[in-house]
């Protein structure tokens, strides 16, 4: 019984982080029709920036905030300097450029910080307390809930959100109506990279520590979550993230950690075979 509670809480806690990362992928996919394969690497770079600030100031929270700021700034840079210039008529180009970015960021981090693991202590105690929840779990849930809630309000209740959605769905019409579509694309990248950086700051302390490749596995899981939910669906990303977190937690708990990569692949294939657009994809709205 205790084991089930533990696996559930742990699965949801990791799932919340995967949900945030999947949401970041969806944000960029909806706006730019690009799967940002560099998202994990960007989040690691942001985490290193936070690490440096903490080392210099001695304040964990200053470093945490610096990592989020670095994430936003990286999103800005990547869109302005790189992605904006990739031809959108050839989707493969964007994939190759994103993968190149992964290599570049990982290499630069390796040169600047070295390739050994650095300790990344969690912000709060990770020992389970009431209902199997650790203070760290609560911190993760709250951070992700606040972020998801804020994004939901931004997208559905504000003028900027209406502009963001319109530019994603119908860029040409949006321009005719006075929307700065290029600016909305940039905003989408900045927001997504910020959410990605937060996810990195939440998940890295629960794994082996800071390393240029620290997010590789998490990225694959989050990508799976996004595909499960449907790359077009923010709600799908959140539910997909939680579901994938649970599945991995139970597979790891009962079958062993070495089975989880296999479970990810099986899940991904199953969804792609049965519902290629994901479980929550809006059906056929565009095809009129």
């Amino acid at each position: 019984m205790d084991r089930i509670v533990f696996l559930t809480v742990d699965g949801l806690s990791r799932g919340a982080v995967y949900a945030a990362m999947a949401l970041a992928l969806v944000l960029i996919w909806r706006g730019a029709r690009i799967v940002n394969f560099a998202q994990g690497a960007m989040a690691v770079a942001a985490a290193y920036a936070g690490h440096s600030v903490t080392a210099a100031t001695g304040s964990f929270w200053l470093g945490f905030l610096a990592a989020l700021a670095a994430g936003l700034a990286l999103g800005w840079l990547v869109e302005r300097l790189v992605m904006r210039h990739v031809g959108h008529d050839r989707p493969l180009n964007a994939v190759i450029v994103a993968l190149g970015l992964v290599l570049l960021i990982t290499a630069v981090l390796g040169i600047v910080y070295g390739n050994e693991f650095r300790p990344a202590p969690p912000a709060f105690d990770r020992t389970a307390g009431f209902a199997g929840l650790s203070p760290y779990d609560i911190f993760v849930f709250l951070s992700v809930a606040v972020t998801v809630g804020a994004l939901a309000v931004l997208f559905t209740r504000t003028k900027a959100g209406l502009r963001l959605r319109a530019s994603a769905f119908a860029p040409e019409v949006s321009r005719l109506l006075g929307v700065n579509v290029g600016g909305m694309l940039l905003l989408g990248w900045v927001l997504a990279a910020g959410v990605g950086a937060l996810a990195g700051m939440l998940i890295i302390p629960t794994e082996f520590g800071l390393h240029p490749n620290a997010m590789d596995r998490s990225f694959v899981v989050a990508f799976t979550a996004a595909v499960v939910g449907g790359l077009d669906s923010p709600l799908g990303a959140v539910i997909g993230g939680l579901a994938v977190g649970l599945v991995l937690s139970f597979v790891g708990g009962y079958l062993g950690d070495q089975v989880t990569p296999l479970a990810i692949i099986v899940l991904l294939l199953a969804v792609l075979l049965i519902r290629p657009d994901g479980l929550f994809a809006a059906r056929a709205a565009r095809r009129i």
Partner: protein
Amino acid sequence: MTAPLLEIQTITAGYGAAPVLHEITLSVPPRTIVAVLGANGAGKTTLLRTVSGLLRPTSGAVRLAEEDLARVPVEHRVRRGMAHVPEGRGVVAELTVDENLRLGGLFRTDRRDARRALAEVYTLFEPLARRRGHAGHQLSGGERQMLAIGRALVGRPRLLLLDEPSLGLAPRVTAQLMGLLARLRDDTGLAVLLVEQNVRSALSVADRGVVMSLGRVVREADAALLRDDDALRHAYLGF
């Protein structure tokens, strides 16, 4: 003769090496409906896209109220009073009726008047008011047409560029639409560049008519003259 609101001066434009439009010149005064007629592929849509800036002319100039628009990006032209309702209407299928309409007024700084314009559109197009919360893809063809035109009106344009608004509409609805355009012209001074296949309807409200063929203007005259010109109708408009 009042100074033209829109002036298109010897523009040449196209999508690749070969131009689609050849040195087109025409103008639209305020409070005037100019119909652009021509067979499929004549270049009517290309002309409107060049005017609204979606397509850059390789030579020639587009001027709105005497301002050269060459350096004015698409998203700023609506702020200068130009509204383009594209072919196929461009309703954002994923957004609701209300969101589509509000989108049309987002650029405006006078928030109060934007709200008033929105309310006016709902009064004007009563079926839209009943479907505020419906997604764009749930609307019928006629309702989508109302939504696209209503959305343009929320921006209170001085110049409306309409690309085949009657496409897919019942004759009665088309007649109502033409009546609305005439009313807006008379009441608000709206200028309209109206691209139409439906020659009869277009010429019934237009003040002037322009006939295009293979990317050139082959005839420009008062609408009344074109209505009665049988030879022209046979030669270029096919009826």
